[in-house]
């Protein structure tokens, strides 16, 4: 007996690299406020990145991971989420975090080596930045269970990278999300590189989206450099999850135009040619061109927005630079709800009062 089971993965894109629409556009394309918000977030993130990289160079910040070239993913995801939804971010999704209520100073504190960055009490239930790759995927599943358990109309969005799809955590999490029908959307930022390891050495699959098939959940591939595509399909998956229809895996195809982090030198392993070829797919000019063509954006607006964003960022940088360091003993003070006696003594010894 021979039987065959079939599967498929679809690829979606609305805007071509030059900003021209490719076929019919979704309603979102007519929502000027939404487009402006997406654009502003991308610009803001890019300016923030630039500033942060400079601060790292001058010793005002630690190692920093830029999202240059991939801003459409953070913007699209952040904009697609409802305030009450929950994000479990990787370390490269500043744009999404700005939409979630994290301030520049929070992120600078974090990359400046200060726990308070992830402690902003106004942020709600969002998870902190996760450094160990893909270990947050199972948190996302657990959080999705929690909101489902309480019948809350909330969805969890997990962001991770192409490298992150090689780690067992990722599979374990999507497998659970499938079988438990969790309100979870996992977005892969496929920026083609995991530090120096190219996507082609990470896995033999043609797509990363097809990894969803291993969990029995829908998986789609989208142009991650088109903010309209990202916003549209992530929102669709989120609302689908909110309606009780379970998880989706989305592979957003992008490209890391920066070094991996400020500690990395990509010229060691990546050709200039490849890098230059990918500049044409840059999401920022793409959306700008689209908006300009549609007459909902002008150079003046652009100038003004740049100025505003820069001013806001400078204001935040100032706050960061002026922030008093935490007291050394703060390393004890949020460790447990109630500090055990033996640690209270260690704390005293740190204060020099043994």
């Amino acid at each position, binding site marked *: 007996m021979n039987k065959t089971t079939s599967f498929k993965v679809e690829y979606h894109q609305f805007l071509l690299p030059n900003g021209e629409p490719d076929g019919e556009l979704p309603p979102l394309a007519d929502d000027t406020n939404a487009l402006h918000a997406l654009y502003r977030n991308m610009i803001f993130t890019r300016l923030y990145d630039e500033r942060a990289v400079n601060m790292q160079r001058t010793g005002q910040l630690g190692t920093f991971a830029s999202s240059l070239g991939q801003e459409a993913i953070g913007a699209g995801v952040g904009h697609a989420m409802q305030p009450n939804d929950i994000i479990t971010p990787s370390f490269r999704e500043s744009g999404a975090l700005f939409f979630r209520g994290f301030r520049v100073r929070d992120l600078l504190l974090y990359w400046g080596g200060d726990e308070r960055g992830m*402690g902003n009490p106004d942020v709600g239930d969002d*998870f902190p930045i996760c450094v160990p790759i893909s270990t947050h995927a199972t948190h996302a*599943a657990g959080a999705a269970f929690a909101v489902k358990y309480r019948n809350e109309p909330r969805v969890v969005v997990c962001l991770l990278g192409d490298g992150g799809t090689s780690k067992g955590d990722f599979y374990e999490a999507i497998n659970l999300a499938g079988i438990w029908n969790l309100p979870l959307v996992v977005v892969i930022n496929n920026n083609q590189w995991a530090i120096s390891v190219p996507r082609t050495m990470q896995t033999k699959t043609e797509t990363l989206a097809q990894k969803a098939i291993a969990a029995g959940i829908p998986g789609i591939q989208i142009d991650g450099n088109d903010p309209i595509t990202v916003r549209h399909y992530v929102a669709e998956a989120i609302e689908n999850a909110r309606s009780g229809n379970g998880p989706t895996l989305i592979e957003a195809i992008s490209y890391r135009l920066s070094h991996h982090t400020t500690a990395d030198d990509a010229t060691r392993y990546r050709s200039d040619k490849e890098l230059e070829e990918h500049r044409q797919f840059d999401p920022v000019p793409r959306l700008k061109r689209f908006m300009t063509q549609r007459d909902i954006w002008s150079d003046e607006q652009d100038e003004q927005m740049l100025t505003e964003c820069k001013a806001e960022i400078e204001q935040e940088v100032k706050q960061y630079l002026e922030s008093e360091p935490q007291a050394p003993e703060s390393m004890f003070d949020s460790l447990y709800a109630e500090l055990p006696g033996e640690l209270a003594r260690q704390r005293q010894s740190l204060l020099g009062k043994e």
Partner: protein
Amino acid sequence: MSEITMIEAVNLAMHHEMEQDPAMVVLGEDIGLNGGVFRATVGLLEKFGDQRVLDTPLAENMIAGVAVGMAAQGLHPVAEIQFMGFIYPALDQMVSHAGRMRNRTRGRLSCPMVLRAPYGGGIHAPEHHSESTEAMFAHIPGLRVVIPSSPTRAYGLLLAAIRDPDPVVFLEPKRVYRLAKQAVKDNGEALPLDTCFVLRPGSDITLVSWGAMLHETQLAAEQLATEGIEAEVIDLATIKPIDMETILESVGRTGRCVIIQEAARSCSVGSEIAARLAEDGLMSLFAPIRRVSGFDTVMPMFRLEKHYMPSTERILQAVRETLEYA
């Protein structure tokens, strides 16, 4: 109030707390319809339904990670790892996230979860089913590690672990699961998570142990008593934090101490207690601190396990040498 075994006490505590706390859920492999391979979760599924008693796919890292995610979002998950020999994939989540969530977010999020696992040897189980690696967890900042040694303490300590606002690793000495019965009152009273239990007062020597080894330790103490030697027996119970006050006070009186553990010796909980005594109690010692422990070998398969695990004889020998030391 009937007499129950330790495994029944564990079960009772979970029943009690699920009744009280709608945020409590239980998850793990085979914990639903099957009631757990040791029957710790028997009856929970029937009583609380399959949204609170969750049979998971087979993945310990996932179980721990999902518990972290649940706990950070207001649930009180109690996750079971079927045997401690399979807990290592969960360790990453415990060290990288569970123990850090509160600190990393300056208290914005927290991680009130319990990771339960049966541990230790002596039941003739297959390979990987008899480990005692509590020290690895006791080394991890931000966690609490608890080991009960009797039905009453299992009940009270597990309640405390579930109610604790921080992550607790709760290790159950499986050799004790059905070893003896005790009257356990289902009164919802928790025991403290930072206090030793003095099981037997004594003035000649202090014996510190935890989990299943308290059985041999108490047998040794009884034997010594017949010889007119009064050993004080301390059940450590909370492996992290360690209640050194009680131990120091005892050793301050007896001047002699033997630590008994089933785990391998190097970098273990016994090492820590000895080190603290050498730091804070040195001058009250009349004799070297002896550790009677598992060897720094792989726990042998069961045909030889009794040679690995400290016996009453080995404890007695160490005690005698310590007492005779001049």
